[in-house]
């Protein structure tokens, strides 16, 4: 199973289970792992820089989101599974929950801020 077959066969059959062509290669996993490790290291370093307020929080949040997306996309195969027919369903089910959770709980925390 070479890479060219991977690309060709992805669109022709939709069996997610057993369709291992669509999944990333070991090399990709290693690259992602190294990137994740580096981001984590940067995060920790950033937290030791003595910054305060948005300068501290915003980059940390951005790095957290990037890590989240990389794990969900590559390790959990979301970005690969969503390329197959109807594969976006996984994406939508999980994404809807995620967005809902973020919005709802941000509103809750905001409501406590604005409370009398």
């Amino acid at each position, binding site marked *: 199973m070479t890479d060219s077959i991977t690309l060709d066969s992805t669109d022709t059959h939709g*069996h997610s*289970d*057993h369709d291992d062509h669509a999944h990333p290669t070991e090399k990709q996993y290693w690259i992602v792992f190294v990137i994740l490790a580096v981001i984590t290291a940067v995060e920790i370093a950033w937290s030791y820089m003595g910054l305060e307020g948005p300068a501290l929080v915003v980059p940390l949040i951005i790095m957290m989101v990037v890590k989240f997306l990389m794990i969900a996309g590559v390790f959990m195969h979301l970005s690969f599974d969503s390329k197959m027919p109807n594969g976006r*369903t996984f994406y939508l*089910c999980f994404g*809807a*929950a995620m967005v*809902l959770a973020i*919005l*709802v709980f941000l*509103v*809750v925390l905001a*409501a*406590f801020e*604005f*409370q*009398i």
Partner: protein
Amino acid sequence: MAVIEEPLALPSGTTKARRPLGAFSRPRNATGLVDWLTTVDHKKIGIMYGMAAMFFFIIGGVAALLIRLQLAAPNSTILSADTYNRVFTMHGTIMVFLVVMPIGAAFANYLLPLQIGARDVAFPRINAFSFWVFLAGGLMLNSSWFLGGGANGGWFNYAPNNGAAFSPSTGIDFWNLGLFIAGIGSLSGAVNLITTVLNMRAPGMTLMRMPVFVWMTLVTQFLLLFAIPVLTAAQLLLLLDRQFGANFFNVTQGADPLLWQHLFWIFGHPEVYLMILPAFGIVSEVIPTFSRKPIFGYPFMVFSGIAIGFMGWGVWAHHMFVSGIGPLSVTAFSVATMFIAVPTGVKILNWLATMWGGKLILNTAMLFSIGLVTQFTIGGLSGVTHAVAPSDTQQTDTYYIVAHFHYVLFGGALFGFFAGLYFWWPKIFGYKLNEKIGKWNFWGMVLGFNLTFGPMHILGLQGMARRMQTYDVSMGFNLWNLVSTIGSFILGVTTLLLFVNAWKSYSEWKAAGRPNVGADPWDARTIEWSIQSPAPEHNFDVTPTVSDLDDFWHQKYAEDDEGKLRQVATGDELAQPGNGEGVHLPAPSYWPIVLAFSLPIVGYGLIYSLWFCIPGTLLTIISIYGWALEPADDLDIDDHGHGPDQEMEPAV
């Protein structure tokens, strides 16, 4: 799932020899009680959901009548203040969690696979588990009646009153753990039914060809899937507070008890919609059938349902306008709440437009549907008055609120469910319910219902607070409370006519030698009417191929040369004969019920003695593994018999 498939059955009738993973064999050829306890048939599970809900309905109804009896006259002492607190709390809890939700689940279970042309749900064993765990939770909740009294903090059990300091009796523990356990059932049911709708549809049944009921159930299950965990989280905090001394709602430690209100209502408002949407789905099936017209604006029906589902998440704080959440929050949630009236209004208009110009057949099912449209509209209108924050500030915690939510829940949800019962009864049990008693049932309920809850609007505006145990003569509440109590007894008696009707119709049918009611007694529209009544165990002999919305109706009626609509076949001519030869059904299993009833043991352990948790947890773990390692006697089970309930591996 399995691409590498093993032969289903050899011609000789023997199956290929295989080595199961271990564990116990599955029950085979079970009959009688064991059959019901181990069944994984979605129809039997649906019926059991319905029966369990009716059982709890009677308990909740008795509680309601006790409340009304207490309030019939001023300074009444029938119930002590403490008992009164317990009775109204349990009434609310039972009616919401153990009656309205499971009746919705009953219809969803019975009808969903039939309406999408499936053999069963995606995970039949999880389906059985969902029911049993709901029942286990419900029974545990109700066991509190005998073990020191039920919960007494209102159905929402606000913090910090729900803490051990203010509610030292075990009632709230039972409330907490019972609903916790029942919530597991709702959650697994939601996962199961969503998978079923998305993945088990018959050929040609595209999303926009699904009956409205299926759509509304799908939205409902998504609401459950996302709302239940929030309640579970809140209950976890309460559990840790009460049983393990945590401080989440401990005000002396600086905790903010509003956290409970937020979490509860983030769950609670979607909960409101997930109670009413199945009923909306039911009347959206009944009204077109008896108006002899297709549903008006099908896409609008679907999208307004989805819109309700989404917007239901943005309005929870309108339950908290007077709790001090601040003017900004009040304004934002007030506006959001007004907007949610729009999709609901769209639905009402669509039902009216469906009936408009139709040849209405006013049988009991249709009457109950019209009852929903009218009564729910009244409740919806009083709901809009709550959206207006200044007005709501006056109405909060008065009987006006009680009137409002009974108009939407009883007048809405329950009328819808009664419509559904009268409509699908022949499909489920093989005989029609008596129309004469049915009409008594309907008109009696409308009368009793409005007599009970109509006056509560007035009482509320007069200033009668809800949850108060009694009132003084001088307060001027006497007349309308008496009217309300009289109404409630009319309502109670006429509601029981359903049971009378079921019994009488059955005995007449039996006396007449069980005549076949036919596959399609109502000349209905959707594909569940294309199979025999009662629905055979295997559902469809051949999986239908769907090419239209209301496919069955389109098979029966076609346009002739002049463009006029004519009947080309009757439902009974088109119906499948009900021959299940060669159909493999998922095998029954002991494990769902064992697993479900192992959870309350842990629950009782948490309340009484942690030592009880040990056998409970052991039994839970063993049954999870017994389930996961259960051999599939029936090879067909491989394809849709397993669920990924965390620890489960497919037992091939």
